[in-house]
């Protein structure tokens, strides 16, 4: 990778130079985080909606737990997955440690509570508004779930973006379970740590700028999509 003294210049040359190494690192970063967010969303959206709709013993404890897990330190999540996936661990036989799959698993654990807890809030607020009308139409709570999730879609997009932000920004979990192996599990954040440790501060900052630019672009796209749809649908 090229190196210079000015991080902005470095970032620019990194992007314009289409550096092969950088390209694979960026691609893996996006792949891991997007996969993690998609899997976490598929699990957390229904769970969040269910928590909003059903009353059962232990519900409040579960909500508090989810809220607390939003602040789970990535290294702790990474450590837990590390212990599960290591050779001697309960899931060691699958040989997943130090693979991108392990990184996805760790990030799902980080992102899931954020999406579930915030979905619960959004759906509960919407349910307050819709409950009587939907009951009047004869909907069961199970049938209300897809309706409420769909009608909360703009708010939920922001929730999913928050999850994506968490996934793309964290370094602790992917470092532990991925191992920052060049060409295999090296992602943007672990590269930044590596270059910082090596003293290549300009390169580290340059990578940071590239990461930030990518995340901004994705957020801008999501914002544009949701604003356009909102204008159309009120």
């Amino acid at each position: 990778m090229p190196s210079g003294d000015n991080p902005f210049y470095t970032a620019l040359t990194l992007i314009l130079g289409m550096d092969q190494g950088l390209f694979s690192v960026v691609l893996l970063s996006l792949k891991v985080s997007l996969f993690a967010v998609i899997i976490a969303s598929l699990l957390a959206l229904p769970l969040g909606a269910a928590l909003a709709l059903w009353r059962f013993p232990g519900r409040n404890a579960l909500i508090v737990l989810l809220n607390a897990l939003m602040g789970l330190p990535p290294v702790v999540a990474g450590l837990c997955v590390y212990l599960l996936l290591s050779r001697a661990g309960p899931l060691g036989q699958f040989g997943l440690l130090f693979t991108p799959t392990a990184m996805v698993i760790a990030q799902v654990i980080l992102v899931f509570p954020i999406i579930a807890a915030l979905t619960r809030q959004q759906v509960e607020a919407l349910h307050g508004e819709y409950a009587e009308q939907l009951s009047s139409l004869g909907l069961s709570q199970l049938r209300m779930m897809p309706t409420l999730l769909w009608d909360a879609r703009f708010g939920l997009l922001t929730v999913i973006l928050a999850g994506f932000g968490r996934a793309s920004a964290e370094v602790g979990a992917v470092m532990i379970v991925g191992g920052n192996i060049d060409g295999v599990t090296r992602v943007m954040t672990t590269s930044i740590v590596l270059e910082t440790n090596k003293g290549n501060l300009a390169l580290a900052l340059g990578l940071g700028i590239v990461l930030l630019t990518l995340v901004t672009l994705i957020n801008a796209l999501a914002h544009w999509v949701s604003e356009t749809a909102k204008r159309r649908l009120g």
Partner: protein
Amino acid sequence: MNAPLSPYLRAVASNVPALRLEQASFEHRGHRLLSPTTLLFSGCQRTLIMGPNGAGKSLLMRLAHGLLRPSSGQISWEGKPPVQAMVFQRPVLLRRTALDNLTYALAVRRVPRHQRKTLALQALEKFGLTSLAKRPARVLSGGEQQRLTLARAWLLNPAVLFLDEPTSALDPAAIKAVEDAVNEFHQNGTRIIMTTHDLHQARRLADDVLFMHNGHVLEHTPAQQFFNAPASPQAGAFIRGELVW
């Protein structure tokens, strides 16, 4: 509003089952909001529930519609519970187009997919909303929104229609549209149970009046009798336009 819609929609039950309340009461956090009430809603009239704010009108409707369960006593239909619909004071519409709001209601009622759009468009036309079909429901005006909820209720083909102060936030033209719709439902054999605090509206629509005050049903009489010779002093004061508490 004319022309029968379709065989599906014309199958209105002309024999609406009666709804019986037996000593039904409702409490919330230790407050008795409805005293034990025994009532019979029978026939196919337009019943107007009247009374000052906080009298328990909306509560009684929600109990009758089944949105709430009584704290004690019984509420039951004589026979099979009929198809019901309810129109709320503030229209609750989904965040999708006017047309999609209607096809959604049909989907919920398991109307075959290929019939939904046709039926929904017919209902929009009936309520003068055709030009708004593709507009998002939640940016329509208050009157248009309420007409859309009536169109949705129409598609459900209810034997009993509950309306909770459906016109309280509307201008006179929109109020007229709602009242016309109520009469249209009634002519199609739908029983009407509606709350209002507008005396003029009650005089225009009511076949019988149920007057409530402080969680008590004070009278349930034919409209003429209620307006000409109310039995309770509270109802008399209410009709004269005095403040009743």
